[in-house]
């Protein structure tokens, strides 16, 4: 994937660029807002990673200008501004995700991947399938190998969130934000307990696990036969 990093701090830009390159992405860099606007407007990027406080043109202005110009590349704000209203402000400017500094690289990578692979027309999908697990979004029912599995509404949403990102790493914070709309980090392991409950319901009586823990990063759902490596 082609990713543009707009970041004025050389050290952070190096760190992010190196990590994304190691993950197999093609990375371009811009050190200020104007350069970022020029590159993002001319190149066809899959994801933009944008700092909010930039010289010459700040991140909010950059994303607004891009959206006004019809550039639809998904944008992620990577910023030290993590105040209560800042995230909403960033999303309202036209960004697709918001990640506060300091951050774990695994978190950034998971979010960049999620942004790039976001299917454009999610609403047309009515059935999600992972291996022998099937979710009918219209009838709100879940079956595994033809056997019906009863889920609470929130468990259903959690599973739907995972299944829509089959094969991708989903972090704890992505789940907290996406499933529960929690924009802070609870100290107790609420996500872990929810996942283990869901696992219990999905995998009980079946030989194979579908939800996998990715150490140091999060969770992923995938069919046993297309496990990587």
């Amino acid at each position, binding site marked *: 994937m082609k990713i543009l990093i707009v970041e004025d701090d050389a050290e952070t830009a190096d760190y992010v660029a190196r990590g994304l390159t190691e993950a197999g992405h093609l990375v371009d860099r811009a050190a200020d807002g104007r350069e970022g606007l020029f590159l993002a407007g001319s190149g066809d990027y899959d994801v933009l990673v944008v700092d909010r406080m930039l010289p010459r043109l700040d991140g909010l202005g950059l994303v607004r200008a891009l959206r006004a110009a019809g550039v639809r590349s998904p944008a992620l704000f990577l910023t030290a501004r*993590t*105040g*209560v*209203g800042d995230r*909403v402000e960033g*999303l*309202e400017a036209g960004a*697709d*995700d*918001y990640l506060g500094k*300091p951050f*774990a690289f695994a978190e950034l990578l998971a*979010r960049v991947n*999620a942004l790039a692979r976001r299917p454009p027309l999610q609403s047309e999908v009515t059935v999600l399938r992972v291996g022998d697990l099937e979710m009918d979004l219209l009838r709100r029912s879940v079956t595994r190998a033809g056997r019906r599995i009863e889920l*609470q509404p*929130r468990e259903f949403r959690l599973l739907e*969130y995972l299944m829509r990102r089959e094969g991708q790493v989903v972090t704890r914070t*992505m789940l907290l*934000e*996406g499933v*529960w*709309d*929690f*924009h*802070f*980090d*609870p*100290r*107790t*392991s*609420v996500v872990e*307990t*929810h996942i*283990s*409950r869901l696992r219990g319901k999905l995998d009980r009586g079946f030989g194979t696990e579908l939800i996998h823990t990715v150490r*140091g990063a999060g969770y992923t759902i995938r069919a046993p036969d297309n496990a990587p490596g």
Partner: protein
Amino acid sequence: MPPADPSARTRPGGTLAGILRTTAFRVTLLHLALTLFGTAALSAVAWWATTGFAARQVAEEVARDMGVLQQAAQLGGLASAAVSVEARLAADRGGAEYYALTAPDGGRAAGNLAEAPRLPGWRNLRLEGGPAGPETTLLALGAALPGGGFLVVARDLAPVRELEARLLGAAGWVGGGALLLGLLGGAVMGRGVARRAAAMEAALAAVEAGEITRRLAAREGGDEFDRLAARINATLDRLAALMQAVRQVTDDIAHDLRTPLARLRQRLEAALRTAPRSEAEWEAAVEGALADCDRILGIFAALLRIAQVESGARRAGFTRLDLTAVAEAVAEVYAPAAEARGQVLETRLAPGLMAWGDRELVTQMLANLVENAVTHGREAGHIRLTLEARPSGGALLAVADDGPGIPEAERKRVLRRFHRLDAARSQPGSGLGLALVAAVAELHGMRLTFGDNRPGLRAVLEVPAPPQGTPAGASHPSPG
């Protein structure tokens, strides 16, 4: 801040220049100018009313005399007029009347005026060496007589002039007196005001110089200066409390961040010294260090958020929010965590209760309370989350557990940053959860109280009703 002007530090009460600079003195001067202007205007009116009246009266007398004498001349000729003139002169004891009757041939027929111009009409005559003094001004009327001859009738204007002089003198005295009294009063008032201002200034300068506990003298039920001083004292009290809070936070941060930082340092040092043999050991050491870093960053994030909430800036983003939905979501999130500890999380939520505030913060506040109940409540215990409407409007939100609770004496202190009960020190936590709860509650005008659940803790939030006619808050799209 610009460097303080040294002249501004001199006390204005001491010197004459200082008094002249005071507002009281300037106000007095203005008042004085207005008074003098008023006095002058009044004097002008008095002048016109008195001396003008006197002068007109003299003129009337002269005109009447002229009329009578002209009639005498008409009836009895020049001789009769002459007799009349002499009779009048004889009767005039004050010596204020003057006449000059001239025959048609130019000879003097009667009167006491030696020289009088034979000109008709009104004029002022100057008389040298008259009986009234060395120089006398007369008001004269000249007219030709019917049978030939010319008559001048005149009156001494000395009484009028004297009246004028007296009036001028009086006006001078009054004006001068007013000026003097005004200046004196202004100086006295200015001095009093300046002295009190100087006392206030000195006290404030002392506070500025670091004497934080110094306060202004303020009498109970006193004048505007006392009220001002009381207000300044209240402001200083608030500032002192804030400074105390800042100092407390700084101390807390220094102490409570040093502990995890020290632990991080120990871990890194140990890893370096013992030189782990396998890659797995290295990895474990780095992961441990990263976890320590995350804990420290978490504390920073929590402190920043509390500070941001306490600043009150977030109030601008308030919307109408569904309190029932927030409580439902929080209960739903924590139910498995409670279950993992063998606890039952029971909810009794009245439907559709609204509040006015920031949904994200209210969610976090309630999450912290429930999280506390889950972490500090009794294992295999019972947690109860209730939301009910208050008869007075608004809502009552309560989280109750049957754990060890908080001793009465500690209930205020647990709201402070980093404060942790001794019993809770072994459990994970930063001691910032309840501080954030308190800050969010304060921001939303909610009253937070801790009660005894017999056994356990019962945290109660009194939520005010949202303002009337507010639109529902737009829910923001979440990423992903």
